[in-house]
């Protein structure tokens, strides 16, 4: 034991540089937008440009517009950043383009939603009011509001929500919403539990929801 403290200092110095560097927003490869094809984005992503619109690799323009709307409903920008800021629909387009096994399920699901919207409200999903869109999703999302003959829609919603969660909570924005502790790359020691004298954790301070106070449910 005793170790080599210079080595450790050296390691920590290098690490904190790396940590600082990774906070530079230019490193966020998922800020990619624009005509750059996917094959080229690893390591060489162009910076996000607000003037160039993302060109979907798999979805049609109409499908992609629905996808954007749906992901923003699932993870809204409600005072804290949501799917839109985190580029979730771009992520989903990329993953679906890379995965022949799920392409049909996404295409069929988006088609189902449009057809069902027309049947219910006489217009495609994108042309419904926010209230109507919300109502449609609530019947697919909450067990108490399930309706018969919407099984395909529910299956699609599950799939879509899974991919939205995958996209959002692996983005830097999403991980920051969770205060994901691994965004910090160096801890001097494993901090462990801070609640001395309360092993059963029965007397913790009440939780605060300052940043996530907005509710959209009834």
């Amino acid at each position: 034991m005793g170790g080599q403290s210079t080595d450790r200092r050296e390691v920590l110095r290098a690490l904190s540089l790396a940590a600082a560097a990774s906070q530079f927003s230019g490193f966020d490869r998922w800020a990619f937008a624009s005509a750059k094809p996917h094959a080229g984005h690893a390591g060489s992503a162009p910076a996000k440009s607000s003037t160039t619109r993302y060109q979907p690799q798999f979805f049609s323009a109409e499908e992609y517009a629905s996808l954007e709307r749906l992901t923003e409903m699932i993870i809204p920008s409600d005072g804290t950043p949501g799917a839109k800021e985190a580029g979730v629909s771009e992520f989903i387009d990329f993953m679906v383009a890379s995965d022949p096994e799920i392409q049909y399920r996404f295409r069929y699901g988006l088609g189902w939603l449009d057809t069902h919207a027309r049947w219910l409200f006489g217009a495609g999903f994108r042309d419904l009011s926010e209230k109507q869109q919300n109502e449609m999703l609530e019947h697919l999302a909450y067990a108490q509001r399930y309706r018969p003959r919407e099984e395909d829609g529910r299956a699609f919603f599950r799939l879509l929500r899974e991919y939205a969660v995958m996209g959002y909570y692996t983005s830097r924005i999403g991980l920051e919403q969770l205060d994901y502790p691994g965004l910090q790359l160096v801890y001097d020691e494993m901090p462990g539990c801070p609640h001395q004298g309360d092993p059963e954790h029965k007397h913790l301070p009440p939780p605060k929801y300052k940043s996530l106070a907005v509710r959209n449910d009834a």
Partner: protein
Amino acid sequence: MPNTLYDVIVVGTGAGGGMAMKTLCEAGLKVCALNSGKRLDPVKDFKTHAQRYELTYRGFMDPKTRSRRHVCERETTQGIWEHDITFTVAPGSRWKWSRCQAVGGKSNFWGRSSARFGDIDFKAASLDGFDVDWPITEAEIGPYYSRVERMIGVASTVQNRPSNPDGEYLPPIKFRCLDHIFQQAANKLGILYLPDRCAQLTVPHNGHPACHYCGGCSSGCDSGSFFSPTWFTIPAAEKTGNLELRTDAHVKEVLVDEDGKAKGVSYIDRKTGQEVAVLAKAVVLAASCCETAKIMLNSKSRHWPTGIANSSGQLGRNLSDHLYGTPAYGYLPQLLGQPSRPDTVHESTVTWMPRWQNLANPREEKFIRGYSVYTNGGCKEFPSFHFQIEGFGSRFKRDIKRYYPTPFSFLIQAPSLPSKNNYIEIDPEVKDIFGIPVARFHFQWGSNELLMWEHCKQVCAELVKAAGGELWGAGDDPSAPGTSLHETGPCRFGNDPKKFVTNGFSQCHDVPNLFVCDASIFPFATDKTSTISIMAFTLRTCEYMVELFRRGSIDERKRRSKFE
């Protein structure tokens, strides 16, 4: 150089191979080590600090590789796992076989749980009447464990447990909130909930810096703060100047002389496709449990028509593995909405419930032997519990955050008992891309380990209740065999040459200059993991080899008593 006669060839560079190289080279022997894949530079090649948003597929990996991924393959480590050399699984059997090609092997990315085996494992057959005792005692192997622990650094506490010999430990990794909660609950059920033995440096050790808790262990450590051959044993062997390490060398067979003793190894140079022979006075196989058995079974000659050193007929038999599964998972309501805590930045097991079954009475339960349980949970990187939460919108987003500190899951580690139905053989028809016959696996879980699984689900459900937790569910089935990477048995050791492939020093009974330094020598998987034991037994075997070299009798079979 093609005609060099080495003292020893070491096949494989993982936990066993690395330790063999170090021990033999430091004793002045000339060693040629063979590794099937390339060598990585941990500082340049390991993506230890890659955040998920920096990865092309965000850590979910290229979907097109879905069907052929290995258990511990990550997006950060793709490209170094064996996909080219195939294997087959017999009808009615299941087996997963993860092999890492890189120098250092799977030990670059291992889970680091490092409990010693003890007399409760070695003398299990005497206690419960099933199968065979091991040719070793706790007193004999203990000093070797101590030396390995001092070398690599293991964090834990002295626990005085009947099922777990204590060792020499660095300060333990601190308990998380969930650990304190479950420890209280486990105490109510009479189960001990303790720090695991974790080969992770909680303080600087032997020139290696302490862990910086970046959470990237399974992508390989960039600072050498937990044991891996890449950071520990291989550099030590290289420092002696006695090591020649050949990469991209896929071993085909052990070559024999006119007496049927080992005279070298033949391998395929994966870069050229050429077959190359290396000669040595002795051969150490440390290719990993099943690969070692496959090489031996493929080493057929006039002397060894069914595979080298297989006069017992036991080569490839007795395959044992850890049944893995999730006996319970859920969340702790106490922690709902609490601030995020660094619960997983160590990326290790931290705590476990070491075997508590069949201790006082070896036949107390419906099953014999015993299993251990590890706890996972807390603020993980990805909120994979999202399936448990209904809805969408701001409420969904808030719930994900609210539940983020609360989830937990247990992992059972239950040894399968050796069975005549579980074994490796050579596939009579299928050959790999180099024309080498492939391994064929026969394996199914048996009733003893399935009884442990059922028992564990019940106990864990009670534990969750006692902890005030809510159960989301349990795994329906245990994982596929091979998932744990803890397989043992196909070259198991014992004193009777008619019943065992290797003797108490892991030396082949039939071929005195052929040694086995991986988990294939262990008679069964026990409730503990095998890496530190591979190292302790390898250290002992290789010091025995050094002694034989010193006496000039490396190719003579020695009675064990003469050495002691």
